[in-house]
């Protein structure tokens, strides 16, 4: 499925005492994608991410970034990764510019590069007006946005965000997701979350972590297509029109079942691609106005609940 793997994880296992958190976990993240790493609280998302960043040591298995192995305690792969932990902690006595200078210097960037990256990123994350305020006065949303800026300062090829939206209010969450949509143009993103609507908004591939391994894994549209049921949803101009058409529709050879309520009809067919057109043709013969037509998409939530349950 994956063309070019930027991040590849193979057979990763990790336990804390008797608790096995990761159990032979393997997956790949394709270059240029936004990978949604989904799982319950405590399912091992943060553990996986910390191993990728080199903050934790795995018992077995390997992590490669652009083909370079990640080794615990070494920082060779760190210049390729930007990391935003779930609750990023800063030095409150610094302002944003000073903080970005510190991490830029640690990442061995030149002063000129640090300066240009700082002004560009502060504008990207919308902190340019608060750049000279001490970080201790920042709200959670501002800290997350600064977290994105510090993670991108050294132009990494992979951005790892650990539940970046879970502590934010709706406005902050929407802002942050918008930011991730901008960021995806520059870098591959690995986003861990348990908020499925966030994944549907920004991710193109997902992995659902359950019991230490992936219970569901692939491109979001392919997964949805694979789990799609052959159901068409049609919205008519009125409830009366819908009611009038229900019976004749059931008479068509390829229609299995008709349901719905109000002005909506849900039609189960044999093959949604082939029969959809026939349904529409039939409706236009009946001289009825169709307000909306769509194929019932399985929601990520239903996919998730299927594999978790």
């Amino acid at each position: 499925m994956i063309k070019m793997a930027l991040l590849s994880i193979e057979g990763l296992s990790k336990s804390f005492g008797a608790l096995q958190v990761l159990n032979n976990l393997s997956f790949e993240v394709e270059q240029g994608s936004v990978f949604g790493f989904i799982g319950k609280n405590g399912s091992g998302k943060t553990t996986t991410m910390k191993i990728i960043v080199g903050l934790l040591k795995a018992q077995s298995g390997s992590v490669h970034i652009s083909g370079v192995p990640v080794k615990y305690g070494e920082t060779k792969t760190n210049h390729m990764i930007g990391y935003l932990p779930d609750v990023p902690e800063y030095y409150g006595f610094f302002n944003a510019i000073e903080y970005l200078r510190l991490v830029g210097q640690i990442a061995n960037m030149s002063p000129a590069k640090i300066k240009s990256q700082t002004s560009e990123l502060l504008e990207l994350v919308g902190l340019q007006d608060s750049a000279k305020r001490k970080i201790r006065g920042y709200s959670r949303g501002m800290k997350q946005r600064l977290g994105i800026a510090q993670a991108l300062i050294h132009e990494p090829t992979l951005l790892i965000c650990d539940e970046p939206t879970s502590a934010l209010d709706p406005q902050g969450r929407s802002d942050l997701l918008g930011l991730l949509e901008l960021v995806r143009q520059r870098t591959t993103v690995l986003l861990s979350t348990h908020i499925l609507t966030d994944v549907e908004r920004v991710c193109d591939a997902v992995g659902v972590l359950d019991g230490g391994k992936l219970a569901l894994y692939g491109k979001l549209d392919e997964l949805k297509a694979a789990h799609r049921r052959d159901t068409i949803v049609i919205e008519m101009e009125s409830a009366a029109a819908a009611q009038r058409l229900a019976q004749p529709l059931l008479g068509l050879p390829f229609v299995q079942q008709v349901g719905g309520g109000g002005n909506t009809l849900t039609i189960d067919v044999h093959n949604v691609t082939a029969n959809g057109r026939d349904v529409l043709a039939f409706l236009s013969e009946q001289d009825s106005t169709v307000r909306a037509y769509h194929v019932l998409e399985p929601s990520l939530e239903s996919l998730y609940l299927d594999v978790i349950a």
Partner: protein
Amino acid sequence: MNGFLPFLKKEITQTLRTYKLLILVLVLVSFAVMSPALARFTPEILQLSGIEGMIALPAPVALDSWIQFYSTTSQMGILALMLIYGGILSGEKSKGTLVLPLTHGLSRSAALLAKYLVSVGGWTVSLALAALVNHLYTLYLFPGEEVAFVLGGLASFWLCGVFLLSLVPLSSVLVKGSFGGLALPGGVLFTLLVLMIFPDLFSFNPLLLASSPLQVMAGVDEWTILLPALITSAVTSAVAVAAAMVLFRRSSL
């Protein structure tokens, strides 16, 4: 040792902006302001309180102001030093502020060494300023008197502080929590105080450095009598910091 210099700069900024250095300087300098005055005016104070004559007091000399200074600083001063710099690594470990710099490639040894050096620097600056104030005030209150070995006594006392500070990083790595950095220095301090009663070990005890500057200054003892304690302290300090670096690299954050 990647990131040592930027992180050292950050530590210096931190000790200044969070007023740690300022507080330590104020505490030690306040002892330096009180000590000569207390030494010089104790007879007058006793006279005012009406117990003059009950105890025979010799006329105060310049050395008394240093006796006063060292006895206060070796207790309250060391306590202040440990409270101010005891959490220098534990605080970052428990708050999680080290995570981001580490992911940018900061070496753990560099972080630990920068912190240790800044705590030693804070101790050095505060003690030097306090000693200078004490010295000038003593000159003013006891004109014409000379005190020998001021620097020698001060240096040995300084090393005692450095010895305790060098236990902080190791303690922070071994003991979790915001005050983890104080566990080992506290335990070692207690043990050494108990060991002071054993004459055989006495000369090796680092605490000798804090209790004997006066003797050195007064010329009672030769400077060399401190040599075993000086060597013990210096070697232990180096070993403790090196061990902390090795263990910190292996510990998970």
